[in-house]
């Protein structure tokens, strides 16, 4: 703002100004303002018209909504008068003038900061409102929710864009492989299916077959990931044999089988989580099963180009784990930072591993420094009773234990280290990242939600167990077991003050 002030010059030449008559109301602005919406907007086109006579350009639209959009072009910020119009109205009008990018940047939430996020809304699909899977993979804050056999799309403004009914009865995995195409799979039905969202129709299916093995038949999909040209999906047959298939995005042909395994032990279960790391071109799969003897699972990394396994860890059992008997309950990869985080099933501890430097025991356990939180880590030794979900997003680690949501955020810490160099001890200041744990939710949002949900149904009056967390854009989406809808958490610059007068 300061910079803008100093550079701001008072325009006195009328030839770089433009007069507009919108629906009978006169507006005057500069050419540079009107072109701020981008080179292909309607307003830019209008500003290029020769206006030798000085008559204002007439646009037959609503003047009030135009004044809001003109304010937006002038200051990159929506004025409070915009609240008179619905989000949808503003978006449609901005689309008409071709300045939806300006509107987007003004309406999207600020960078997501887990230590200061609040529940802003709950997206509730109208029918079958219990989400079975969702994807926020487009990265612009939009989300596609699979609920039962339907997929509902919500755009960057969280406006419902449409619902597609698929032939599947119960979608358990969904991934956006093209901007308008979702790949869906079900643990109850065979095959990976692609649906075009804009047309609302089925565009293709992929089945896992093997000419040499007739048992490979009617395989179901458990996890989906994608790279720029391929889709990766983990398939499992009825006799539990499983494999990751690499599928070409344009031809929908299976190009290779990765990590085919028998599936008759916990070590060879079908991967239920797949992540593709574009930086190194590797694919990471993990599976966790929970039985009466606690959790067991594996994390495995393959190179899809060679189809070979690069690294693996099995818990319990493999390597010289420093935490014997405390196997992980969930694991997630921070794609940008090339790190992965796990949460231990018994102690509830969080550990980090550097994917660039994987060893036999790569885990570094994050220290809980706050004594008041140390005891609130769960039941402790409950042995697989807790439901824990971990998700890395924007250099933060979001973790849920039962219904609570917490975040581990990085803070730079200076630590003095004493070094003994030949009789002389000198102090060296070491800068390092340490992680701090904070709760994202508070008890108050719980109450508010209770009120909301008690209106809709009495059964969901208790906050449900978090089943899935995913970040997209600057939003965090959370779905809970037995609760209708997907929660949207955002950070805000506004204080959200409540008047009690």
């Amino acid at each position, binding site marked *: 703002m300061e910079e803008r002030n100093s550079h701001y010059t*008072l325009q006195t030449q009328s030839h770089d100004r433009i007069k507009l008559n919108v629906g009978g109301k006169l507006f005057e602005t500069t050419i540079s303002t009107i072109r701020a919406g981008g080179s292909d907007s309607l307003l830019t086109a209008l500003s290029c018209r020769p206006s030798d006579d000085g008559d204002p350009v007439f646009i037959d639209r609503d003047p009030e909504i135009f004044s809001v959009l003109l304010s937006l072009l002038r200051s990159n*910020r929506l004025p409070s008068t915009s609240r008179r119009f619905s989000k949808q109205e503003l978006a449609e009008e901005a689309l008409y003038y071709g300045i939806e990018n300006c509107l987007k940047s003004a309406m999207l939430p600020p960078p997501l900061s887990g230590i200061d996020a609040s529940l802003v809304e709950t997206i509730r699909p109208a029918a079958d409102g219990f989400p079975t899977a969702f994807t926020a993979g487009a990265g612009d804050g939009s989300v596609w929710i699979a609920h039962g056999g339907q997929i509902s799309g919500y755009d960057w403004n969280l406006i419902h864009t449409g619902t597609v009914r698929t032939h599947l009865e119960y979608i358990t995995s969904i991934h956006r492989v093209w901007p308008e195409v979702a790949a869906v799979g079900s643990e109850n039905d065979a095959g990976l299916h692609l649906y075009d969202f804009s047309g609302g129709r089925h565009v293709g299916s992929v089945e896992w077959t093997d000419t040499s093995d007739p048992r490979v038949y009617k395989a179901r999909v458990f996890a989906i990931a994608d790279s720029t040209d391929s889709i990766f999906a983990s398939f499992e047959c009825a006799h539990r044999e499983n494999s990751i298939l690499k599928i070409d995005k344009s031809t929908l042909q299976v190009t290779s089988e990765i990590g085919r395994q028998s599936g008759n032990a916990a070590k060879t279960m079908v991967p239920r989580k797949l992540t593709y790391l574009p930086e190194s071109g590797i694919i990471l799969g993990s599976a966790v099963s929970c039985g009466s003897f606690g959790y067991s699972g594996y994390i495995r990394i393959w190179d899809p180009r060679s189809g070979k396994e690069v690294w693996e860890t099995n818990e319990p059992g493999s390597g010289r784990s420093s935490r014997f008997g405390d196997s992980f309950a969930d694991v997630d990869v921070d794609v940008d930072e090339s790190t992965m985080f796990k949460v231990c099933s018994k102690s509830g501890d969080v550990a980090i591993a550097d994917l660039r430097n994987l060893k036999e025991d790569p885990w570094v356990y994050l220290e809980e420094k706050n004594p008041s939180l140390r005891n609130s880590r769960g039941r402790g030794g409950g042995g697989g009773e807790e439901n824990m979900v971990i998700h890395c997003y924007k250099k933060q680690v979001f973790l849920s234990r039962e219904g609570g949501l917490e975040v581990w955020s990085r803070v730079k810490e200076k630590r003095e280290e004493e070094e003994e160099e030949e009789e002389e001890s000198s102090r060296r200041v070491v800068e390092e990242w340490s992680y701090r744990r904070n709760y994202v939710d508070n008890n108050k949002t719980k109450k508010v939600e209770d009120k909301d949900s008690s209106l809709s149904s009495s059964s969901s009056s208790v906050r449900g167990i978090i089943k899935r967390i995913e970040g997209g854009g600057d939003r965090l989406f959370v779905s809970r077991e037995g609760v209708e809808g997907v929660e949207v958490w955002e950070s805000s610059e506004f*204080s959200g003050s409540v008047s009690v007068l």
Partner: protein
Amino acid sequence: MPPSESKVHSSNGFFQKKSEPNVITINVGGQLFQTTKQTLALAGSKSILSKILDPNFSPSEVPFIDRDPEIFSILLSLLRTGNLPSKARAFDLQDLIFEAKFYGIENLLMSSQSNPSQFEAFNLERSLILPLNGRDSPSAISTTPYGSVHVAHGSKITSFDWSLNRKSTILTQFLAVDSLLALTPSVAAAGATDFSGLQILDLEKGFVKETLTWENQTMSSSTVQAIGSSPTHLFTSFESGRRNSNSIMVFDLQEGFRPVAEVGHHEIYGAEIDSAIPATKLKWVSSYNLLMASGSHGGPSGVLGNIRLWDIRSGNVFWELKEKIDCFSDVTVSDDLSAIFKVGVNSGEVYVADLRKLSTENPWVCVGDGRKGYSKKKEGFGCKIESHGNQVFCSKGGDVELWSEVVLGSSRGSREDGFGERVFRRNLMGRMKDVGGNRITQMGFGGNKMVVTRKDEQCVEVWQSSVRGF
């Protein structure tokens, strides 16, 4: 609207127009406004409006500013009168702040809306709740003179701007911030009783600008017990990590926090309890150039405490009081009233000590019910007392008492020592709906508001007196 406004100034405007044009016409977003040079000059030299007044700026046409005309008309009224017109209510304060920032006149808007002179203690009512995210309730609070509020909750510090419309949150290295003091709206000093060093934090970007420490002979860590400031100095009460020594450090605020002096350094040997108490409250008394430091300790024999007034330049104690009977639960000093106020931990009553006639015997005059002084109950436990302007605010449980001096005519009550007996009276603040609630943990004052935090509540309560315009 512009035409009618120009009529107001027509008496001097039209006649001078030919010789020296005093009336200035501006085109803002297509609407013409007319005003005088004097009005525009009030915007200050940094404002873009002052460019119009520049003698080198000789426009061939009416100067054009590409902004919203409706908000400009409100800001022009602000320039003309110093107050916001009532039509400003059609907009959010946030819109006005944003436009005022563009024109470079945010300080005018701030002084019309959140001016310390608008603080009316008798007219405060509970008006806003500022929610805090997460599960930590506030542990420390600090305000700036124009009403920005900083709240520490857990390891986070949330800052609200003077309008209380915008907030930002940073993560600190502390596990919990126990003392917080705002130095400017974007810089604060923070410390904790379980973390070594005082950190000067940039609250906008969230980085540590400076770490200030104090070291005793054993070179152990130093935790922060209290922070205070005068216009030129920053005071910090440190205690060593082993709790065997404590000291108050004086840092220069103007010269990059250079340590200037050290007062009240105590090394503890043996069981001498009095010197083992670090100062937990530091208040600057500007009219006497003294620093008030107080600390207390609860033991099996009751609560012991001391109050000291330090002369920073010489490093000597100007006055010292050891509290044994009905020791303070909290103590504060009021510059405007020239008095020290305490709330007794046993009685829960408010006492006054006049700064003009301090004695070391028993300077306290109970202004409440004096008979309670010898009870062994801890009725004043957790009570807070703070002074602001001419008033003293004392929290008792969930309520706030407002103590004010009633100035009586000189005919009555004058005694031979030259001072009349001072009369203080109390009021319970707020309407019926505002009374009660969880125990108050912190009180702060800034602009025209009082901010209050309560035990186990993840929010900040704002008490305001109504302001013109909004």
